[in-house]
């Protein structure tokens, strides 16, 4: 029975994965075409200098395949992706894949921390609000949510810097992941806070956490609202259902009823929203990355975009598409774990 349940979950996740492929392919082709109309000629950029002759530029253009028609270029691009070659960045001079691999952990660490903070705040808030609908607490949570989605992350980030760095002096200089003078731990996960712990360097860990907390907090503030709202709505449904009434009538403790029965049944929509929030945050955190000079993938893509360097942008979109697929898979699997009924249907 367990096996069939697991098998069904995998089959279901696989089906959904397949059905999202055409749209993902569409997004890829769309970005490819978009990048072809970017202003600026990459061949001129790669040429030896501003005085490079016409012939030299033609030569480079031929090397890069820019003399071919756009459909041909698209085919080359897709076959390059198939071989794991994302092209080379003009800004850094490195292969895009290498750049992305170096910068992805920074973005992921930030996004995971933000999501964790948001969930830790949103789920209790939503539950408390749902327990006493219409009460002062409920209105307070609603007000907090209404305000939270209205403050842009770049504004809340800057205001947090003002309060915690300038006024209170609690936070370190808000630039980057770590002080330039701190010696880095051996890289294992790429998540600085985890690597410091693995290396047993508590001081370094604390320094990394202090850099991390403000950007993560400003991102979290923005996404607490949707998570808390969905938790509240789904808890209300769950608390009003027959099984909760039954559980209470047989004399189970209130705490057990709320946490074990009501919350577990209410958690599915929260997982869905958390998945969506996660993939949106990865892209939208370009604003936070810029405010805190965080060396993540989104700010890398932005810098590339502003200097008409299209290989990194395409690589970034591809990465986002990949993460999007993985997140959806993870959500599907979490579904199966949180509610075994899903995989049977």
């Amino acid at each position: 029975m367990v096996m069939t349940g697991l098998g069904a979950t995998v089959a279901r996740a696989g089906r959904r994965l397949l059905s999202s492929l055409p749209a993902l392919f569409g997004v890829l082709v769309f970005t490819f075409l978009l990048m072809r109309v970017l202003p600026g000629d990459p061949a001129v950029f790669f040429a030896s200098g501003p005085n490079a002759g016409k012939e030299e530029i033609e030569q480079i253009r031929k090397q890069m395949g820019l003399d071919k028609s756009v459909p041909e270029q698209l085919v080359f691009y897709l076959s390059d992706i198939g071989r794991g070659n994302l092209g080379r960045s003009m800004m850094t001079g490195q292969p895009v894949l290498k750049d992305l691999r170096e910068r992805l952990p920074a973005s992921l660490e930030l996004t995971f921390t933000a999501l964790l903070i948001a969930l830790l705040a949103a789920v209790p808030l939503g539950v408390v609000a749902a327990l006493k609908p219409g009460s002062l607490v409920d209105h307070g949570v609603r007000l907090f949510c209404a305000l939270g989605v209205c403050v842009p992350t770049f504004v809340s980030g800057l205001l947090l810097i003002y309060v915690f760095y300038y006024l209170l002096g609690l936070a370190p200089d808000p630039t980057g992941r770590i002080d330039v003078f701190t010696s880095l731990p051996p890289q294992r996960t790429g998540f600085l806070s985890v690597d410091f712990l693995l290396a047993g360097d508590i001081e370094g860990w604390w320094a990394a956490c202090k850099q991390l907390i403000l950007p993560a907090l400003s991102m979290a503030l923005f996404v607490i609202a949707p998570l808390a709202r969905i938790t509240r709505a789904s808890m209300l449904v769950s608390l009003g259902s027959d099984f909760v009434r039954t559980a209470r009538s047989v004399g189970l403790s209130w705490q057990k009823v709320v946490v074990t029965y009501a919350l577990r049944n209410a958690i599915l929509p929260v997982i869905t929203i958390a998945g969506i929030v996660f993939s949106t945050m990865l892209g939208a955190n370009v604003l936070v990355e810029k405010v805190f000079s965080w060396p993540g993938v989104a700010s890398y893509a932005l810098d590339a975009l502003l200097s008409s360097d299209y290989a990194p942008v395409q690589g970034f979109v591809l990465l986002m598409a990949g993460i999007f697929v993985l997140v959806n898979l993870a959500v599907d699997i979490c579904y199966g774990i949180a509610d075994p009924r899903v995989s049977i249907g």
Partner: protein
Amino acid sequence: MTSATLRHSVWILRGNPLTGVAAAGVLLLVLVAIFGPWLVPYDPVVSNVSESLQPPSAAHLAGTDQLGRDVFSRLVVAARLDLAIAVSAVGISFVIGAVVGSFCGYAGGRLDRSVGRFVDVMMAFPLFVLAMAMVAALGNRIENIVIATAIINLPFYIRFARAEVNVRRNVGWVEAARSCGESHFSVVLRFLLPNILPAMAVQISLNLGWAILNAAGLSFIGLGVKPPTPEWGIMVAEGARFISTGRWWLVAFPGLALMMAVLCFNLLGDGMRDILDPRMRT
């Protein structure tokens, strides 16, 4: 509006006075956007270096920036541009989205399913990045911020119109219109679209706030609006350089303006939903 709807609206408003406040806020914002340039005490673009970086005072309600320009005057004048970007972007995506979504919802079948699937994937994709790429590709101009914001708003309207039309496509009055010889084309445009407009209005109000945030975000990272044009996002970006030396007013006031504008549109949208569909009240 019939008298019954009116009574119902008044009853709802009494239970939720915030909607009225939000409507007043939106009205104020529109008035400021129209008359702002004639109301301000200082010229928003003329610099006066001898008075640079002054904290808020009676002469400068929101302080002055690094070039000595009055932040309050810039905030007021910026309302027009910020609102214009958001309104035109949402307008474009509403018109296209409503028509495309209605036809898909009405036609159903395979086309409808694939459009629906595409829209779902689009919505889960990092839309802000897509907007960034579009502005960079089309050229760093204000029109392109409008286009990019319109395109990333489009999925929401298509999905909404599709769902709303889908539940109505086989109701009595649609059947009646068809049996009277109306073409499919006219059934959608003359019967179904007007019918879903009120529900779409809610979506528009909620979306305007989102569009304002998106446009401000784009100009914050240096896309679209260029200095010295007063615009809330770029004002925050310019003020960001001075935050770690304690010049809070350069960020706080444009941030507050953004927040109030978005808050008013969101609350108004929520209130309108309560009036239109009492079952949706949360």
